[in-house]
């Protein structure tokens, strides 16, 4: 079982989001970086599949040279190989990101195709909801998003998506592409031996091949605060009648 997981380096936002003076990025001077939560689960899922079925886990990212940190995190929890497609740190649109990742995946697959390529459902920062689907089409593979449970046998992957009232099940033949969501598992923490191994591991690095996209970011801004006055109904259990008055007012009784 050969699995590839694609991840993205994103800032771990604090309680307040500050922007850089050019309004093109989050001011990350006082922030640490992470992979998006959905992708953290994708890495964990790939490692669980390896533990169950054997095989290898490759992790890939497109991003600045510093994104090596996120690849080493994946190595520290059990990934075998890490590939960095280096950019100058600028914001790549989803089409360009997918094209660059596809080109690199095709190169790597010269020595054998990945059975499964995992993505997070959407990146935490830009939230485009599309890179995995674009890559699946470019590779001519079936794809399903929003997955919170998956099982693999020799020829197929069975994937479960939650709906409002329950779940729905999809079955895709391998090789396939699956975008997963947080909740599919609880990701493990790196162990000390894992960290040491990851520190020494080689990260295969090369430039990302650029192509034009059609979506251009002009600026970022924080949404205006809508209100500031909170009506304090009271302190402690004595506030209960006021709360129930509110429920009546809203027609919830």
């Amino acid at each position, binding site marked *: 079982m050969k699995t590839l997981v694609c991840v993205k380096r994103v800032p771990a936002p604090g309680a307040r989001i500050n922007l850089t003076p050019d309004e093109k990025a989050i001011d990350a001077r006082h922030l640490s970086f992470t992979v998006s939560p959905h992708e953290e689960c994708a890495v964990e899922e790939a490692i669980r599949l390896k533990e169950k079925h054997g095989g290898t886990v490759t992790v890939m990212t497109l991003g600045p040279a510093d994104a090596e940190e996120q690849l080493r995190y994946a190595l520290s929890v059990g990934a075998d190989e890490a590939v960095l497609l280096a950019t100058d740190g600028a914001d790549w649109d989803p089409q360009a990101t997918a094209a660059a990742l596809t080109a690199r995946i095709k190169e790597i697959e010269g020595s054998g195709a990945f059975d499964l390529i995992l993505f997070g459902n959407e990146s935490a920062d830009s939230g485009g909801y599309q890179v995995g689907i674009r890559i699946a089409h*470019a590779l001519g593979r079936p794809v399903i998003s929003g997955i919170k449970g998956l099982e693999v046998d020799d020829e197929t992957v069975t994937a479960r998506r939650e709906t409002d009232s329950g779940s729905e*099940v999809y079955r895709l033949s391998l090789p396939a592409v699956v975008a997963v969501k947080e909740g599919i598992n609880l990701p493990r923490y790196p162990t000390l031996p894992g960290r040491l191994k990851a520190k020494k591991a080689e990260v295969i690095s090369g430039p990302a091949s650029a192509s034009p996209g*059609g979506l251009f970011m002009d600026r970022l801004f924080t949404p205006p605060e809508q209100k500031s006055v909170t009506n304090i109904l009271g302190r402690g259990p004595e506030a*209960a009648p006021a709360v129930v008055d509110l429920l009546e007012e809203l027609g919830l009784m």
Partner: protein
Amino acid sequence: MSRVLVFVEDDDGVVTETSLQALTMAATIGKVEAVSVGTSGMGGWQIEHAMLTDYAPAAIGEALAQLVGAEMPAAVMAAGTERGNEVMAHLGALLDLPLAANITRVVQSGEDWKLTRVRWGGSLLEECTLTAAVKLATVALHSVEAAPQGTASPITVFTPELTDAHIMTRVIERVTLTEGITLTTAPVVVSGGRGVGSPEGFGVLEELAGLIGGAVGCSRVVTNSGWRPHSDQVGQTGTRVAPNLYIACGISGAIQHWVGMMASKTVLAINTDAEAPMVTKADYAVIGDLHPILNAIVAEVKSRKGST
């Protein structure tokens, strides 16, 4: 005016609230034509194919691509739901066109579209330019109020050419766990955070929700601690809710949680910390330990219900 196709989703033949929002946003930029798989009650384009027996994202994307090829609209839009974003990503991949996910505003600027779209689930907004022969965009949930729709348009059936490959990714089994009120449809959500303290601590939240026809939600720390299933999580990586009343019990209000419930019409926070972001952003608040407060609310609701 330029033609905008809007892929609409329906619930047993009734168009969904979020699709109505997408239609409303689309009407600000062009002449809207609804597209549905089977009947949506809206009229417009109706995609029909013997193989489309259940939701199949790649096949619906392919059908839309064929419809775009035949009709050459200026744009295709959909609601920024799980399915809307998924189908539109297939369409973008098939036509090699850019897709702007989760927009909150659109303005024509020459040949381009100037958009505002959500980042970080809504805690940050982005102004961007979309340059494409056919513009593709999804509309962020609850970013506009759905305008009332006029009478249904006449139906035009569109039959795409589909193969087994298109239909391979489709729902093969459906499991219904909850009947009736769900997190996204409940008029009131009673949600708990770290302050609830334990899985058992949710008992009183369940009781209150049961009394007032609500659903129980929770914050990310709660699911990460294994106190509640992930399907109960409200927030950026969980479910987006927009109830009439959101009762946040012991939730500090981290931005990742706030974006999942900021579309709620009224927010009541119950928290020991009067300075917590959830309390300062809420419409109403009760300060103090949530368990005695909720017990008192439950008792008060019961006594008023009993006396009427």
